[in-house]
């Protein structure tokens, strides 16, 4: 047909005069970044600034805050809720909410302990079954939400109460089950890598990022599409390399890079790639942006919704397993209290919008670190949990306000 007129053979079309072209000079990159900020595309900036401010304040109050030991503890401490946040982010991208992640992590921990300790099932198998429990729970939530049409808020609120009840039932009259100190479960959070492995992972990660980015930009240039300049790729690589190598250096000063934190980072990176680079991720964003548009485009909206709730509960279960590993026990209070609020708060503080369709998997990492830093710092200062709750609440509120304000700013700058 006529619209297939081959244009590819011609020279690359001149860029549109209305498009503001930024030079590849450092000044051009800074100018472009400033323009995006004014347009309300804050990205990860507020949370990174917040993290630096929090670290500076606690370090000035207690010089142990930035010690390698405390930072190493911090990385382990954020893993469990961070994984739950990862799942919450998926649900938030749909424009929905999952209130059950805390309870699901608790009941999965209970399943793990009951199977491994009371029934003597091998620990690895018990871990797999505990995670599978989470998946099944998520499928139930998602199906009731997507197929029956009950609001996600209500479905997962029922889950919040119901699965906690199941947890109490499973734990029985004892209320607490201890897991062995030397099994696969404990191994998850007790393993640290020797320094060389840590450095190797850091080099591989940064190298892969730089290599794949350069390759991608070269393909774009070859196809006659606007591409990032080499200077911008280098700037981005340096921005990534500084925290990665810095983090490995600090962790190597204590025990080395912890396995649990690597598991968490792995989930974050994989989810980020899935969300940005795959058809599935694109469909999740589409459903979050406009479910009706997605439906008309032939996307199976119900299936996407069910799968996202399944993923969220699966990740909650993984978080629950790691919580058991770190505490060597599951109790009636596992997964209750502030766990749910911290998981949702971390996602929002990290920059994932509560309004759906906007966010990134890295929110779980950044938001988790912010909340972890506050908790850790207040423990060091021997503050009560009353103070911690109030400060966490204030940070959450600030994050949501930033979300709402930047949303308005994006509207004003016509960027959705």
């Amino acid at each position, binding site marked *: 047909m006529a619209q297939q007129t081959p244009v590819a053979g011609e020279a690359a079309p001149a860029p549109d005069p209305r498009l503001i072209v930024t030079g590849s000079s450092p000044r051009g990159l800074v100018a472009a970044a400033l323009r995006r900020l004014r347009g309300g595309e804050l990205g990860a900036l507020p949370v990174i600034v917040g993290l630096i401010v929090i670290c500076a304040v606690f370090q000035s109050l207690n010089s142990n805050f930035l010690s390698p030991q405390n930072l190493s503890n911090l990385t382990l401490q954020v893993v469990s809720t961070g994984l739950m946040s990862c799942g919450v982010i998926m649900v938030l991208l749909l424009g929905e909410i999952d209130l059950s992640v805390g309870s699901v992590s608790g009941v999965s921990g209970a399943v793990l302990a009951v199977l491994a300790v009371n029934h003597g099932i091998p620990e690895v198998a018990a871990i797999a079954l505990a995670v599978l429990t989470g998946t099944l729970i998520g499928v139930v939530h998602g199906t009731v939400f997507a197929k029956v049409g009950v609001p996600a808020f209500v479905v997962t609120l029922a889950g919040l109460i119901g699965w906690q009840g199941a947890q109490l039932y499973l734990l029985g009259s004892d209320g607490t089950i201890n897991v062995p100190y030397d099994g696969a479960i404990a191994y998850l959070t007790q393993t640290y890598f020797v320094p060389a492995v840590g450095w190797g992972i850091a080099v591989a990660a940064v190298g892969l990022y730089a290599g794949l980015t350069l390759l991608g930009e070269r393909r774009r240039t070859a196809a006659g599409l606007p591409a990032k300049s080499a200077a911008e790729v280098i700037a981005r690589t340096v921005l990534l390399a500084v925290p990665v190598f810095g983090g490995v250096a600090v962790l190597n000063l204590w025990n080395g890079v912890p396995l649990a934190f690597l598991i968490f980072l792995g989930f974050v990176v994989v989810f980020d790639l899935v969300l940005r680079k*795959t058809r599935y991720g694109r469909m999740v964003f589409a459903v979050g942006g406009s479910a009706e*548009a997605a439906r008309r485009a032939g996307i199976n909206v119900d299936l996407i919704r069910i799968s996202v709730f399944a993923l969220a509960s699966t990740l909650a279960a993984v978080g629950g397993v790691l919580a058991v590993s770190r505490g060597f026990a599951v109790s009636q209070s596992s997964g209750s209290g502030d766990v749910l609020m911290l998981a949702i708060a971390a996602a929002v503080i990290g920059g994932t919008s509560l309004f759906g369709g906007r966010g990134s998997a890295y929110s779980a990492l950044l938001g988790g670190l912010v909340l972890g830093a506050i908790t850790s710092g207040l423990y060091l200062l021997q503050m009560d949990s009353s103070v911690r709750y109030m400060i966490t609440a204030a940070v959450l509120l600030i994050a949501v306000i930033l979300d709402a304000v930047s949303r308005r700013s994006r509207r004003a700058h016509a960027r*959705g």
Partner: protein
Amino acid sequence: MSEPVLELSGISKRFGAVQALSDVSLRVHPGEVVALLGDNGAGKSTLVKVIAGVNPADTGTLLWEGRPVTVARPADAQQLGIATIYQDLALCDNLDIVANLFLGGERSTAGVLDEVGMERRARELLDSLSVSIPSLRVPVASLSGGQRQIIAIARSLLGEPKVVMLDEPTAALGVAQTAQVLDLIERLRDQGLGVILISHNMADVRAVADRAMVLRLGRNAGDFRVEDTSYEEIVAAITGAADNPVARRAGRVAVPGSEEA
């Protein structure tokens, strides 16, 4: 003229006690813009839904390039090559232009999106429609109403349809944007597509349509060649002003046989 790409005859559709369409016929030739006109409740939307496969007809035949076909589901219509652009554009505001163009039909290898290929194809498509949009990587929310309408139309063209149905494409647009969309409709016609244009705006119809098909109370109320027909005649057919003894007599005496139905 050449063989019609799409021809409907004897289409009837009933919703409970309401006979929404009775014995309606419509034909579209390649490279022709047919305006589908009618007052609210005349059955335009029902007819569009019949063609798009959303609400199949109760009776009647549908000929596609001369052979009878059944369109029972929207997928059937898409497979034949009928693209429908509804009034609410069904774009995802949070996604960029490329993502919206390929929504639901992303190109991928082993599940990984082929962004370069999609952006290149999107650029080619928009260039072939003479649409100039500065960057294809901005969220659709940042576009004007006319640009959004154009993106919605362009998206339907990726399926390489032969008939495009547009439901009120200029309803919410300004003067310049309306002109853009009308330009695009003319370009579709020049590319040999059959276009069905549902509109209330007579100026638009006169500007781009070759034929005007009028529905009134679920029946054919006239099929006019736009360039030979006055504005008043079409409006009379839409409102039924001609449908009374006085007008009929006046019509018989003055210009006999100017109206069918």
